[in-house]
């Protein structure tokens, strides 16, 4: 059995000195298996977004140990954080589109990595979220509805085929059809690419329909696991 993609031990994220006294996240132990889909539910301010930013290497732990792909991420790892962020990609609540066309937005991350950009790859990524490349590719970012923009942002991350995809409230503000496309994309990413997904959402029912495990968070701590029917 391979090592988990993420392993957290005694991880604390806090502010001020000492950080542990002002912790906004405290995770004594957590493992996230490769190719799994982990759901996070909890009230606003329960620590879901902080945990996702930690897993997306936008935050470093104030204390404790975070391992990724079997290696402890040390200070040097965080200094070259973009290398980790290219493997674990976050779609945050506040993620925005760039002032470019849809195609340019989807291609942007590939260009950052120096990877070739093919029309087929862009079409595939957009197709995963139910958007037609011919129709949407040339459109400006200004011509999209909120739901379409959200799906384009997801497509831009799917195009990168990351090892881990971290989604913060990916279905908020979306209509039923768009939620269906997001779910289809999430499952396709796992099935066809082996992507590990961590998804935070208030929509417990939707989360249970696609996640292997759903953890409950409250006041910066994992307080339990939701099992079976509610």
């Amino acid at each position, binding site marked *: 059995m391979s090592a988990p993609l993420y392993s957290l031990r005694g991880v604390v994220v806090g502010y001020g000195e000492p950080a542990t006294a002002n912790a906004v996240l405290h995770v004594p132990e957590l493992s996230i298996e490769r190719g799994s889909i982990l759901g996070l539910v909890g009230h606003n301010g329960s620590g879901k977004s902080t945990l996702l930013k930690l897993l997306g290497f*936008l935050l470093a732990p104030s204390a404790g140990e975070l391992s990724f792909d079997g290696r402890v991420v040390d200070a040097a790892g965080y200094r070259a954080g*973009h290398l980790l962020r290219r493997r674990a990609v976050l779609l945050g609540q506040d*993620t925005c*589109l760039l002032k470019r066309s849809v195609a340019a937005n989807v291609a942007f991350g590939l260009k950052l990595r120096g990877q070739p950009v093919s029309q087929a790859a862009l079409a595939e990524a957009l197709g995963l979220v139910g958007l037609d490349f011919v129709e949407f590719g040339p459109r400006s970012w200004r011509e999209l509805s909120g739901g379409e923009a959200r799906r384009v942002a997801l497509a831009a991350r799917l195009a990168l085929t990351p090892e881990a995809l971290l989604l913060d409230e990916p279905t908020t503000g979306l209509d039923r059809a768009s939620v269906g496309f997001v779910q289809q994309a999430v499952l396709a990413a796992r099935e066809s690419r082996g992507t590990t997904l961590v998804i935070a959402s208030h929509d417990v029912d939707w989360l249970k329909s696609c996640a292997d495990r759903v953890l409950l968070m409250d006041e910066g701590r994992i307080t339990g696991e939701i099992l079976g029917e509610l």
Partner: protein
Amino acid sequence: MDYFSEGLSQAVALLLSLDAETFSAVGATASVTALALFASLLLGLPLGFALGHFRFPGRRAARLFVDWMLSLPTVVIGLIVYALLTARGPLGEWGLLFTVPGMALGLTLLGLPIIVSMTATAVESTDTRLTETLLSLGADRWQLLLATLVEARFAMALAAATAFGRIVSEVGIAMMVGGNIKWQTRTITTAIALETGKGEFATGIALGFVLMVVALVVNLLVALLRGRSNGRQGGAQPGGVRP
């Protein structure tokens, strides 16, 4: 009014006859402006980005300094640069006094604060979510800088046009550091001052006419860019909200 109309007709004749002295001044202006603008952009864009993007001790003081530089009289800048470049000055051995590169150095000090200040403001006003978006897509530090500047491209172009307008129309620094040497460092503005002093209004008005056309083009460009920039304010589009 005859005075002006005669001057204007002489000016047109001077320009149509491709007067060498007039076009020498135009050439010197183009060279010195291009050099100064290039240096201002090269230094000003990263400095402005740093000032607008990073939070560091002394940031407010740095911002205050840049804003103070914006309001510094050009003759004072000219005096400082002259003192630096004069034979007894710390940079005297470079031999830049009364040369086009020397003038460009002085005019860079004029353009640089404009680029830094306007870039910092543009970066500050870009959506704070942009940084997180770029980082989460895997941008390294340089890619973050470049992509942020590209996102603020209309404001950047506005800064460049503003600095260009200021540099091309400057007279104090050009006069003091350049020395107004015929065929070499005589620019449009210094030539206008000289010719007017000599009572050669035709030449002065001809050169003023060229400068006014340049100023008109720059102002049209600025208006166009400002319109486009205002039309695209608000940084990048939030993922879940229609603009």
